[in-house]
């Protein structure tokens, strides 16, 4: 078993890092201050097929395996200083595009995937509601069968990409008595459908260049042909999409952790105090050593979890473990970097405080750390 990147993986990483540094990094601070999402940068990502890394080549994607997708997203997290944009790409790809690629009918894949891959379309996952966050199946959004389709009513919140999305993957209750297992259905809803609106747009402490808001569905008609994966299949589709999101969003965090480490080490080697570089002081050096160890452990956990995604039934265990460990490691490493950089760490112009603000959300979205621990405990039979 080799844990070295192959030649192809190294090329993939190198190309994405170079692209991200050249095209996505400039202006990241300004977009953060203004909380502005850039569709131009999204389209640039589309030209690199980043929104469709693991989509089959016949639909315009790169056809990457989950592990290769992890390598690519790590490269994006490393090279791109716009954490909101990285998050937006990941949310689109992992929680929306992957479910369509894996569960869509041929017609649905042919209709949506090319645009979702090449940057023409942006997707939003509509699951969370005000009264049901990680408890996703206490949802109030309903889908009522009518001739030729369904009428959707409800309101989703904290929907990443919601205010800018062209397509919404909406989960709605079709049979409350069945609950999680068979009572929830996934619908592909064009956001220009009559009765659909994007509702409130939220202001956040981090990930500010990713637009997050509400989805409002007021009598939205969705034809039968836009049911994803069959009536009642939404619970399983959502659970699987969370495995992908938790495992592979963490890959982007690994890249961010590597960039933070390089920033912190570079500063510790150059900044002098009392006649020597501050990195020579153990109080600083130990922080950096811990950052390196967290980075290596995180990368291995991501690869392990990614390797489970396509077939293993225990993928959710590994996805929860990696999501929990890597998001908390990211926060620790971001805080350590701010501390090592001292006054520069909290100055907005250096961007490190922005990474910390972005990182704080990582232990919350896609299921909080507490929920991940619950899942791991349940897999232990507790």
């Amino acid at each position: 078993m080799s844990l070295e990147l192959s030649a192809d993986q190294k090329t993939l990483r190198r190309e994405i890092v170079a692209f991200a540094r050249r095209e996505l990094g400039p202006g990241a601070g300004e977009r953060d201050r203004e909380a502005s999402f850039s569709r131009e940068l999204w389209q640039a990502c589309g030209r690199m097929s980043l929104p469709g890394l693991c989509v089959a080549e016949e639909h315009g994607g790169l056809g990457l395996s989950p592990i290769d997708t992890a390598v690519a997203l790590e490269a994006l997290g490393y090279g791109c200083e716009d954490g909101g944009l990285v998050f937006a790409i990941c949310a689109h790809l992992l929680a929306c595009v992957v479910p369509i690629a894996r569960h869509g009918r041929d017609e649905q894949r042919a209709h949506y995937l090319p645009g979702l891959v090449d940057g023409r379309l942006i997707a939003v996952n509509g699951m969370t509601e005000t009264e049901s966050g990680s408890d996703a199946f206490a949802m109030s959004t309903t889908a009522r069968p009518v001739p030729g389709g369904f009428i959707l009513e409800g309101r989703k919140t904290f929907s990443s990409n919601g205010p800018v999305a062209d397509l919404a993957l909406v989960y709605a209750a079709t049979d409350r008595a069945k609950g999680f297992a068979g009572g929830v259905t996934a619908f592909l809803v064009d956001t220009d459908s009559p009765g659909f609106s994007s509702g409130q747009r939220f202001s956040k402490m981090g990930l500010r260049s990713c637009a997050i808001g509400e989805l409002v569905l007021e009598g939205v008609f969705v034809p039968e042909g836009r049911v994803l994966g069959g009536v009642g299949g939404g619970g399983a589709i959502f659970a699987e999409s969370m495995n992908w999101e938790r495992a592979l969003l963490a890959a982007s965090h690994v890249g961010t952790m590597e960039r933070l480490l390089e920033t912190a080490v570079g500063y510790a080697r150059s900044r002098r105090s009392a006649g020597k570089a501050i990195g020579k002081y153990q109080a600083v050096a130990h922080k950096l050593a811990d950052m390196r160890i967290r980075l290596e452990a995180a990368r291995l956990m991501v690869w392990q979890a990614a390797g489970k995604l396509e077939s293993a039934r225990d993928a959710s265990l590994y996805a929860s473990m990696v999501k929990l460990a890597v998001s908390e490691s990211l926060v620790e490493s971001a805080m350590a970097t701010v501390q090592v950089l001292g006054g520069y760490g909290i100055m907005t112009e250096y961007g490190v405080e922005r990474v910390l603000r972005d990182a704080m959300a990582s232990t919350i979205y896609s299921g909080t750390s507490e929920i991940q621990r619950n899942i791991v405990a349940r897999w232990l039979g507790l």
Partner: protein
Amino acid sequence: MASQEIRAAVKDYIMEEFLPGEDPATVSDSTALLSEGILDSIATIKLAAWLEDHYGIELEAHEMSVDNLDSIAAIAAIVTSKLEARG
């Protein structure tokens, strides 16, 4: 494989994995496992993984439903149909 044999094996697995120490008499072939909350979402996935491994079958996303997994009898029925389809 006889349905009764499948029912017994499934019940043994559920008692050992999810209800350790409970009286087996509390769970019958018709006890509602999902809709009564005996099995939650993760337990359902673990059960599906066991069924796939133990019987060499594959359950699709839409088959992970209360219609197919809510009771030992229903579980035995879908396992039987999968085994028969496989031939």
